[in-house]
């Protein structure tokens, strides 16, 4: 077995693998190709006049490609994929919060836009409390 050099806390080793450099080069190529595809799609949206739905689809593909890139960087370059499963879970499980985080806040932004574009956020004038001077209307932006 090849001699290993790590801190004394490490009780067993799973790295480096014999094909480590090959794996790094392969990952580099994958990352570069994904980036080039992303750029191509970005330029495609600029060059071609697309309908809203198609544009959204292209953007969705770019987001998924970026997530794939992130997964490659974390699991190969940062070697998270080589760690103990429980260790991986302590990192990955908290990140599930992002599912709520992204949906809730983008939804909120969309709702804000709707309120601004309609008078849905305003009460009819007659329902305004009369006695309070400088009362701000709910939904007004000041």
């Amino acid at each position, binding site marked *: 077995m090849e001699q290993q050099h790590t801190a004394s806390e490490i009780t067993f080793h799973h790295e480096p693998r014999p094909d480590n450099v090959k794996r790094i080069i392969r990952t580099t190529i994958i990352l570069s190709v994904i980036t080039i595809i992303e750029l191509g799609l970005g330029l495609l949206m600029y060059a071609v006049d697309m309908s809203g739905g198609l544009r959204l689809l292209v953007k969705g593909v770019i987001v998924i490609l970026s997530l794939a890139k992130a997964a490659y960087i974390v699991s190969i370059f940062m070697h998270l994929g080589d760690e103990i499963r*429980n260790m991986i879970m302590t990192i990955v499980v908290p990140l599930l919060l992002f599912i709520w985080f992204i949906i809730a806040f983008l939804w909120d932004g969309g709702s804000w836009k709707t309120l601004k574009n309609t008078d849905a956020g305003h009460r009819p004038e007659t329902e305004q409390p009369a006695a309070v001077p400088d009362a701000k209307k709910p939904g007004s932006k000041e």
Partner: protein
Amino acid sequence: MANAVQAEQKWWSGGKSPFNLEYGKLMMWYFLMSDTFTFGAFLISYGTIRFSQNFWPDPNVVFNAFPGAGHANLPLAFVSLMTFILIISSVTMVLAVHHGHHMNRKGVIKYMWLTILGGLAFLLCQAWEWTHLLTGEHATLVNGKIELWPQTVTKNPWGALVEGPAIADALKNTSHDTLVKLVHEQQHAMTHEQLHAMSHEKLAGMLDMGKVHVRTAGPIAFGGYFFGITGFHGFHVFSGVVINVVMLIMAYRGAFDQRGHYMMIEKAGLYWHFVDLVWVFVFLCFYLI
């Protein structure tokens, strides 16, 4: 290998490392996870504001300059260069860690140098990009007249394109200096002084309106988010370069050979890859979609 654990060594007070990881490395992971939430919060709040706007600037229009290419329209070209610089510096970092595993000091030093140079190159690119945005002069229709606006945290010149009679009216109200600058962009043969001497109407007549792109003011939040988030990322790159320089000096002094392992390079590497990882999402949110 099993006998490497001895009963009296109370790593973490529990007898052994639960995750078979060095304490510092595990804590680096948890720090990076918390940093993920910081960046995530920034990017998501940017998303909230963007979703609340009826109009948002097209990144292909905003980021279309390249150093030395003048006014050529090269959308995304420069930021692709920055992205590849960061990917490559991430690769050299992995290779430094790899040589660290094999106790190869020369290899570590070589790849740490390349990583540091990549980081510095990225920072220089960002400095150029910021300067270009902050000092740019873009024809913007403001209060019925044309002004030349940069991209700052208070001004955004990337609104909707204005066409037709609105521009002709705006030109009448535009200041003489601005008009001279607009004409000079198209007529390089004449000096500013010559143009200054001409009448307002004559200057307006000389303008080829097909080449002047006048836009309305865009959403102000764009600048704050762009400079705030790319600045915060740039600060991470900067601190990563500083950490890598410290690692390089320690490697030169043989500190890791004395310890018998190159774990510090691994921890610095984790931080450096995180910088690359964040850029994936900054690149996605600001430049691609």
